[in-house]
């Protein structure tokens, strides 16, 4: 561990760019990036947008039945990193990913691997709720239909119901499944998107600031839901709200300008951060 330097000058207030430049060479992550029971393992991941490097040598594991939150100031690369985990970055021109990302020992950037089934295994919930302009039922049935997960209408009905139940939306929408999903409230739309993701039974769910467009009540419902989902899925969540990270996650990773600065138990990160940048961020001095 090379935390001594940072720990020693924790006393300084604002961060100057000289400090940051000084931090750069010693960008090795503070804390243990591995977990005992990993579902996804990332090693030395670099991401480039054209000539600009957005992620610099990040290594990080996502454990089974764990919620991993990623925090950091805007533009720190946490969303970019998240989008690497199910190859959503493939749709962006000029984006290049190196290093290794494995899902259950399978390299997801393997040339032979088709990203399409991968995305059924690693689902994603976006910042802004994006239900399809179809009925609530069709929104949830969309994934099972394209993957042929059910054999008949009855099975599909059952899958839709169980997905909506898991997303905590069933009781609110069971009488109006044929109405457009876009007509729901923001929080309900986001839960519909989660139900849609659950319906294809992924192993990992990625969430990119899922509550940033929601009010506090809807946020609380979704956070509760995330905690319940942990029983069956691995979840990686990007959030701008440190309270949210503290409430929902077991492990927290702090990103800064493309570097993974510190990883650790959420409790430890928020009560006893080891790296000065982490401390500055969570105490609100920076970012």
């Amino acid at each position, binding site marked *: 561990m090379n935390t001594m330097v940072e720990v020693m000058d924790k006393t300084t207030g604002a961060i100057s760019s000289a400090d940051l430049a000084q931090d750069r060479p010693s960008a090795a992550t503070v804390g243990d990036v591995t977990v005992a029971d990993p579902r996804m393992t990332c090693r030395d991941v670099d991401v480039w947008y054209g000539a600009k490097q957005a992620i610099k040598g990040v290594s990080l594991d996502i454990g089974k039945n764990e919620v991993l939150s990623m925090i950091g100031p805007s533009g720190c690369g946490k969303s970019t990193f998240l989008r690497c985990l199910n190859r*959503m970055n493939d749709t962006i021109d000029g984006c290049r990913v190196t290093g290794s990302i494995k899902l259950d020992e399978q390299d997801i950037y393997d040339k032979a691997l088709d990203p399409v089934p991968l995305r059924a295994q690693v689902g994603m919930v976006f910042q802004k709720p994006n239900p399809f302009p179809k009925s609530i039922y069709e929104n949830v049935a969309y994934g099972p239909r394209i993957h042929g997960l059910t054999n008949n209408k009855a099975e599909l009905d059952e899958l839709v119901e169980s997905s909506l139940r898991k997303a905590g939306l069933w009781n609110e929408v069971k009488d109006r499944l044929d109405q457009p999903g876009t007509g729901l409230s923001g929080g309900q739309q986001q839960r519909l998107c989660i139900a849609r*993701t659950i319906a294809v039974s992924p192993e990992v769910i990625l969430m990119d600031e899922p509550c940033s467009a929601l009010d506090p009540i809807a946020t609380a419902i979704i956070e509760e839901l995330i905690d319940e989902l942990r029983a069956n899925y691995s979840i990686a969540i990007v959030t701008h709200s440190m309270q949210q990270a503290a409430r929902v996650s077991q492990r927290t990773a702090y990103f800064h300008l493309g570097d993974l600065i510190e990883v650790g138990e959420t409790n430890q990160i928020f009560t006893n951060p080891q790296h000065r940048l982490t401390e500055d961020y969570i105490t609100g001095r920076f970012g």
Partner: protein
Amino acid sequence: MYSWILMLVVLAAMAGAYQIGRRRAIASAGGPTRIKQLHSLPTYYGLYAALWAGLPALLLMGLWVGLQDQIVIGLVTSHLPNEMVAGLSDGRLGLLINDIRNLATGNIVSAEVTPEIQTAADQYNRLNRLAQWAMWAVVLAVALAGLAYAWMRTQPRLRARNRVESTFTVILILFSSIAILTTLGIVLSVLFESLLFFQKVSPLEFFFGTNWSPQIALRADQVGASGAFGAIPLFTGTLMVSLISMLVAVPIGLLSAIYLSEYAHRQVRAIAKPTLEILAGIPTVVYGFFAALTVAPFIRDLGLSLGLDVASESALAAGLVMGIMIIPFVSSLSDDVINAVPQSLRDGSYALGATQSETIRRVVIPAALPGIVGGILLAVSRAIGETMIVVMAAGLSANLTANPLDSVTTVTVQIVTLLTGDQEFDSAKTLAAFALGLTLFLVTLTLNVIALSIVRKYREQYE
């Protein structure tokens, strides 16, 4: 003393008034350092003065130029000897006035120049000259009075900006109403001519008759041309040609739009899209002779080799070429609505493990469908109203047929043939053109209204 010189003078006066108003405002505030005292910026006081100096004067001048000739002619005719005017019909009187006017301006006169006419012409010239001078004097006086009024009103408390802006609003309203009033005027004139037509031919015959033969007798004793105005063959012909063209344009346009917006690489798109839109820039007359000289003979030969009897001016040829012309409408409008589907919907679909084609078929196209339908309806109304291609390629015989290899005629073609050449403007034949035009207008208007409301509804969904 031409009027346009006066106009320039008034414009110059406006420029001067602008400067004067501006200076006056600054002076009334107590110098350039204290313009904060003014309600508006000095520029607005300048514009205020310029508007007062220019607008009333220009309006008066327009009125004067419009009415001067009428008043002068009125005065001249009232001074003509009674025995000359008495008992003249309006037409004859008009001829007489024309003679006077011609004589006055030095043109050739149709009748012999009598002393009375000579006097009248002299009087006409004298009055006109007088009126010119009077106009100069009055207009300039009004301009000066306006400037003086603005000068007196200019003080720091004057809300010059509000005045100027509301004046400009009124001017903008006037200009935009020109377009609306013109449309209204065209509709009304077509409507009245159509009513005249329906007095001669019953609407029942026109809308439900199956025999179209608009030749009518020019003289009472002429035989063999009684005239029949059953427009059904025209409607079916129009429908058939439009249908064929849409069968060509919709699949090609839609599929190319999907390729361009979803699959094409950015560089391909940058070249292919403008190229496709060049099709829309080709004059329809070029499409017309392409249809008549290349496509129609080709189809005819093809039909012959297959043992089919194809008319040399078949509905198929006109429809095919019209379809090609409409491709860019469909593709460009569809491309726009497909691009308007938010990326987040595509991401949502990809994140569920959908392939690109599944995403397009199940998410993008359904989301864009209302807009695509709107675009297609606009294209249909374009096809129905298209004239040049069908004039050149579809023929004139009003066959009531469902065979696309046969020759048909369309509403637009018949309007053209009814109105070209020397025609009487009160015969049923020419009036029929207006009735056809009105029908066409109502159909395309309805289509456009439906299409635009669909497109608008769709736009609201994502904003």
